[in-house]
């Protein structure tokens, strides 16, 4: 307790020197918490959006389906059995049939994935009800990225060409009936969505599907012959990995910040021990043991981080709270990361994040503060009293 009392007196008494270190260190606190919170918020938002728009409570893949190999699409579809149909009727599953196609927007040729979805489905956030249409053309729904890349707007007509189950090419005129906006690029870029029944007719793959999306509220997944269930852990693994990589990249930033702050503390400590030799000698003369003096100087250095946490809280809590409420604007180009990203990310600052950061900084500051103080153990009190460099 005495060590803390004296260290506090010394720090406060040192004035500007202390506050400069404290302010630099407080920046580290705020930036680390902000950056980690932002990534955590992004992670949570991306997961939420992927679940809402793309994968629901999990996905049954047809046994031949491989999303990374478009050539397998021709064979990766299976009959919707009565058992599956029963689940669909209860709104526990919704089927999606995926076929390759080519569209000709504005005279250009564009390969796309043509996805058939039940317009009545409510499992995914996709506004599929907009595909109800009595028009002669194929009603098509596309994402905003697809629309932008192909300069398509609602009401535009576009020719679609595909191969049916017999390998025969066919083509039809399609009409853009809806452009949806989603944070999930994986359901948007290079894809067109049409009613599944229309796709069954077009491809002669009646009552077939490539994947079956499971309702989020439907916990238990049944086993269907010829279909493999993929859970969230599997489907979100890639995104987790991207977030992890971004987190590692971001860590470099705060390691640099932390390093600078620690350098300031280390420098202060080395300078203190160099300049305050007479004071160290006086401490010893007045009855402190070398261990007590080392402890005092170490606490003094480490207390920078305690003061920094307080200072960081004073300006950091309002700043970070405002950002947590208002969100952080992400540039459109962030879509290029291939990661579901909203226009605004709402950082998530958990207690574990804040406490963890404080502990990391406190432990690092204590170690950095301790290292130079070991010199004190070798000091002769008589030399220290004269302020002689030892």
């Amino acid at each position, binding site marked *: 307790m*005495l060590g803390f*009392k*004296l260290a506090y*007196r*010394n720090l*406060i*008494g*040192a*004035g500007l020197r202390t506050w400069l270190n404290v302010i630099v260190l407080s920046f580290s606190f705020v930036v680390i918490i902000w950056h980690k919170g932002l990534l955590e918020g992004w992670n949570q938002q991306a997961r939420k959006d992927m679940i809402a728009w793309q994968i629901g409570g999990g996905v049954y893949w047809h046994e031949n389906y491989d999303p990374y190999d478009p050539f397998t699409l021709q064979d990766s579809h299976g009959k919707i059995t009565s058992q599956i149909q029963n689940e669909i009727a209860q709104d526990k599953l919704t089927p999606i049939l995926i076929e390759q196609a080519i569209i000709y927007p504005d005279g250009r040729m564009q390969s796309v994935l043509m996805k058939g979805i039940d317009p009545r489905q409510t499992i995914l956030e996709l506004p599929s009800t907009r595909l109800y249409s009595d028009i002669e053309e194929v009603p098509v729904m596309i994402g905003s990225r697809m629309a932008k890349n192909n300069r398509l707007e609602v009401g535009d007509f576009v020719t679609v060409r595909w191969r049916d189950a017999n390998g025969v090419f066919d083509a039809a005129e399609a009409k853009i009936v809806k452009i949806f906006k989603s944070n999930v690029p994986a359901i948007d870029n290079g894809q067109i969505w049409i009613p599944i029944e229309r796709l069954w007719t077009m491809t002669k793959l009646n009552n077939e599907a490539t994947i079956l999306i499971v309702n989020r509220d439907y916990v238990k997944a049944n086993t269907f012959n010829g279909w493999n269930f993929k859970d969230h852990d599997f489907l979100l693994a890639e995104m987790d990995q991207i977030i992890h990589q971004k987190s590692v990249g971001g860590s470099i930033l705060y390691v640099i910040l932390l390093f600078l702050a620690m350098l300031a503390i280390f420098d202060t400590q080395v300078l203190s021990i160099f300049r305050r030799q*007479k*004071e160290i*000698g*006086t401490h*010893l*003369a*007045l*009855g*402190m*043991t*070398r*261990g*007590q003096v080392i402890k005092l100087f170490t606490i003094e250095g480490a207390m920078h981080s305690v003061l920094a946490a307080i200072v960081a809280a004073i300006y950091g809590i309002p700043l970070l709270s405002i950002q947590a409420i208002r969100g952080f604007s992400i540039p459109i180009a962030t879509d290029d990361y291939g990661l579901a990203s909203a226009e605004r990310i709402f950082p998530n600052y958990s207690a574990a994040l804040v406490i963890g950061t404080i502990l990391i900084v406190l432990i690092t500051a204590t170690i950095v503060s301790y290292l130079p103080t070991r010199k004190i153990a070798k000091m*002769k*009190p*008589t030399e220290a*009293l004269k302020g002689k460099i030892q």
Partner: protein
Amino acid sequence: MENSHIVILEKLVKRFPMGVRKFTALDGIDLSFGKGEFAGFVGPSGSGKTTLLNIIGSLDTPSEGKAVVLGHSISALTHKDAANLRNKHLGFIFQTYNLFPVYTVYENVEFPLLLLKIPADERKKMVLEAIEWVGLIDKIKSKPAQLSGGESQRVAIARAMVKKPEIVLADEPTANLDAQNSHHILQTMENLNKDLKTTFLFATHDEKVIKYLKRKITLFDGKVAKDKLKEQ
């Protein structure tokens, strides 16, 4: 006889390494001091005054011989025991005051009591009493930078005296002070010596201090050249 002495030095030798050779700072010192003495080591620079004071203060150890302070053999003390001895029984006054620059007068004087873990109420009483002894009650919140040399040394005296130690060791306490301040300081110490029966040991070559000493031990080349009591 030996029991009444609080400091006993026998055949005390102190050598310092100087390159490959050794410099003998103290060479066979035999001295003893009783409670309440107001004595001083005088002599030219390099005569061994400060070295002797440092050994009595357990800040240094003898190379040979015996130094017993308040029953503790200095050579046998561990770092911790030596710190304990200084903490409980010894007070130091330095030529350059050695006040903690970031502490106020009150905090500087309070410091030794914090180490002794004296309860807050009692501590406050003792600090105020010590500051009153040296007449600086109006400067209680001042920091050392705001004090004159004389005032700083009076704070150092209060700090040395606040725990009422058995022995106060003062190394050139008036070297940085003018005549008026020196006399004021010495009178303060003389009064404390009378009132509290504290033993004061000085290392000095200042005539102003020497006039006040009741026992003057002249050192020359690390040896006791003269040990003279002041005539009453």
